[in-house]
């Protein structure tokens, strides 16, 4: 259980979240994958905060958690608005911005 273990775990989780983001079409699942990626980054921050014996890493984690909560609130609001206007959450159908 070294620093490398935690960093490796964080990288694996980030890769899983990123792959899910590119893979899925449901908008809610896309937000879930974003949460996975944010948590992977949080894990790496916590590992380095402990390794370097500083508090900045944990302060960063708190800020990231707050931003993630704000992002989830706004994202779910956008999802509700999208469902109201399109009656679907399939991102392969909602592509007006694709040009």
């Amino acid at each position, binding site marked *: *259980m070294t620093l490398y273990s935690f960093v490796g775990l964080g990288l694996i989780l980030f890769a899983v979240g990123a792959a899910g983001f590119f893979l899925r079409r449901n908008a809610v699942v896309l937000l879930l994958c974003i*949460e996975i990626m944010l948590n992977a980054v949080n894990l790496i921050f916590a590992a380095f905060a402990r390794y370097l014996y500083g508090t900045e890493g944990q302060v960063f984690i708190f800020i990231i958690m707050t931003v993630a909560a704000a992002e989830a609130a706004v994202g779910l609001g956008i999802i509700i608005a999208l469902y109201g206007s399109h009656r679907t959450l399939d991102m392969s159908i909602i592509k007006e911005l694709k040009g």
Partner: protein
Amino acid sequence: MSADFCGAREGIMETVIFWTLSTLAVVAALAVVFFKKAINGVMSLLAFMLVLAGLYVLMGAPLVAFFQVIVYVGAVLVLFVFVVMLLNLKEASVRKPFAALAGAAIPAVLSAVGVAALAWLALGERTLAKGAFLPPAPGIRQLAVDLFTRHLLIFELTSVLLFAAAVGAIVISRKEKKES
């Protein structure tokens, strides 16, 4: 707890707990990606968050673990479940074929490798190669003092951001009134 549990000498118990929790975390993350229904994904993410809270405790950051449970499990995931129940999604999202799966995995793996290379470059001078054990973590008191003195401006800005996001979410998701 901080004296002997988080000491420089690692026990076999912590290694076992770490590998168990990390396996559970990866499995839960994969379940989020591969479950068809959104509500199953949300429940898997709940398991993921709880496992990560356990990892934070193992890492000597119990305050982060508390906030993980309170903020994510208590607020964010409840919001997700609320929206999924509210929208009553019936149709399952169609899964892409295998070629698209491979095409999606490539950028993910590339990004992970890129981050790993950056970390390796940035930390090349330090003595990480020995696989040094993690030193004891800073205490909650030191963390609180730092948060409310050196990082006070960021703290206040974050509260403003959270307020703006809450108002924005309400404005976005409410129904538009007719032009009067």
